[in-house]
């Protein structure tokens, strides 16, 4: 590190007010994932020494299964493991989480798996896992005194931020690539606030948001200047899977990779549960899933690289279309450390994944879910996934948001006149 490093760094992104006592629950500091430098909790996201990502450091008290099980049916049952105040469940928010874990026996049989579960996060308030991370980011934004909730988004996050801002009585500003699916645009705009369509891809929008975050000191960009808090929300996916399995860890997990944050936080959640004695410390493998049209992490994994080379995304899986993934290197670390892998699938395989999950389990996934199911299938076919190990696959969003992906593939079996003879003639019975 340079000897000229400043002794005290004052980021102008800091909002005005000081947080109240207990504002961040068991969280104690921000810690650089790269160099270990620590700093106080605040609206900071990059290390002032090395630019590395800041993570929340905790001092967990005693947390028991009974405590958690007595909590609300939302992510707030895990509040003692998150950077949120003890009274978080009483403050208006979207109360996401505790979505269903579906035993997917039909899909398991079709793929040749012994035991398969689908963590179906389309059941969240705005129909994607993003409600989890936004709820934690909203809590931090409030405690830090921000007045505007904002984000750059591939769509699902825009929906979640717009809804959370409305619920919280804050101004919402969401920024999206201008070519997003219509459903995601409308399902953001309906909540009011400002919706800015940017001519460019997600990485362009993300760059712009980072620039704005440096100027608008009252704005909490959930995945920029309060990203350390936001990212912790993804841990609740791992907590729930473990609790819903009867307080144990699955042997294999397949998770979609956009920025890569979710995958790394599920890994973190399993580690915290084991450290706190809430589950037995059993081995698990984490697998990442990408669309071939945006597969910088998969490419780095297969090439044996530690560095993720950015790409220009071109895929129907727009919610995973991040060409320069912030947590890409850490996805490589986690998948390699646990004995997993990162794989990618074609556009047709994504569509097949959507229809396969719908046909076998009655779950209509968005394109990201199609990527994950198709990757599950491919990993089994190429022998990287153990068919005898208990496996969980994540569906992180609702298929109604990405109808274009399957239009032309499915539709009416027959169009007939309203007569019994016409019905018989159509051969449906």
């Amino acid at each position, binding site marked *: 590190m340079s000897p*000229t490093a400043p002794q005290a760094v004052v980021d102008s992104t800091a909002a005005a007010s000081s947080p109240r006592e207990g504002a961040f629950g068991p969280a104690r500091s921000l810690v650089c994932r790269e160099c270990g430098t620590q700093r106080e909790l605040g609206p900071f996201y990059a290390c002032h020494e090395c*630019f590395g*990502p800041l993570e929340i450091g905790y001092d967990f008290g005693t947390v028991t299964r009974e405590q958690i099980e007595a909590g609300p049916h939302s992510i707030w049952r895990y509040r003692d493991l998150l950077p949120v105040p003890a009274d978080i469940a009483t403050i208006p928010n979207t109360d996401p989480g505790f979505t269903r874990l579906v035993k997917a026996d039909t899909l398991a049989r079709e793929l040749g798996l012994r035991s398969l579960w689908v963590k179906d996060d389309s059941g969240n308030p705005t129909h994607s896992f993003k409600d989890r991370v936004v709820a934690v980011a909203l809590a931090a934004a409030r405690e830090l005194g921000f007045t505007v909730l904002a984000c750059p988004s591939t769509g699902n996050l825009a929906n979640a931020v717009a809804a959370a801002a409305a619920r919280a009585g804050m101004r919402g500003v969401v920024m999206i690539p201008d070519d997003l699916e219509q459903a995601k645009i409308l399902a953001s705009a309906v909540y009011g606030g400002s919706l800015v369509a940017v001519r460019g891809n*997600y990485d362009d929008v*993300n760059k712009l948001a*980072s620039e704005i975050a440096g100027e608008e000191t009252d704005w909490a960009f959930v995945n920029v200047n309060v990203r350390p808090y936001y990212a912790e929300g993804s841990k609740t996916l791992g907590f729930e899977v473990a609790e819903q399995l009867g307080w144990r860890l699955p042997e294999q997990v397949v998770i979609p990779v956009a920025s*890569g944050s979710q995958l790394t936080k599920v890994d973190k959640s399993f580690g915290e549960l084991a450290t706190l004695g809430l589950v037995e410390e059993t081995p698990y493998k984490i697998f990442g899933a990408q669309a071939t049209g945006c597969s910088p992490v998969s490419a780095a994994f297969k090439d044996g690289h530690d560095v993720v080379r950015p790409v220009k995304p071109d895929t129907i899986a727009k919610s995973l279309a991040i060409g320069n993934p*912030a947590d890409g290197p850490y996805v490589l670390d986690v998948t390699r450390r646990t004995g997993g892998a990162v794989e990618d699938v074609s556009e047709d395989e994504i569509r097949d994944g959507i229809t396969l999950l719908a046909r076998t389990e009655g779950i209509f996934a968005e394109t990201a879910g199609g990527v994950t199911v198709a990757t599950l299938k491919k990993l089994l076919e190429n022998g990287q996934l153990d068919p005898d190990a208990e496996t969980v696959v994540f569906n992180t969003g609702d298929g109604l948001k990405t109808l274009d992906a399957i239009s032309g593939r499915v539709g009416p079996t027959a169009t007939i006149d309203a007569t019994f003879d016409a019905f018989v003639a159509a051969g449906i019975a």
Partner: protein
Amino acid sequence: MTVSVRIPTILRTYTQDQSQVDADGATLAAVIDSLESSFPGIKSRVVDEQGALRRFVNIYVAEEDVRFSNGLDTPTPEGTQISIIPAVAGG
């Protein structure tokens, strides 16, 4: 050649809290050297000991990520807008 450089909050302690500064140079590497002479210490925050762009720093020259062009050798014509941005955002 004079260019304009947008400075992220994390580096503004070096630039007396200026969010935008001028620098000189025909390439990005020369621009960074120019920044260093005006604001000592800033270069080592952006470039590592081997002289490569740090892993968690993105630099855009005329809105284009230099990792897609010629990295630190990317030309910086007169009047170019350059942005330095922490890479750990988004998702």
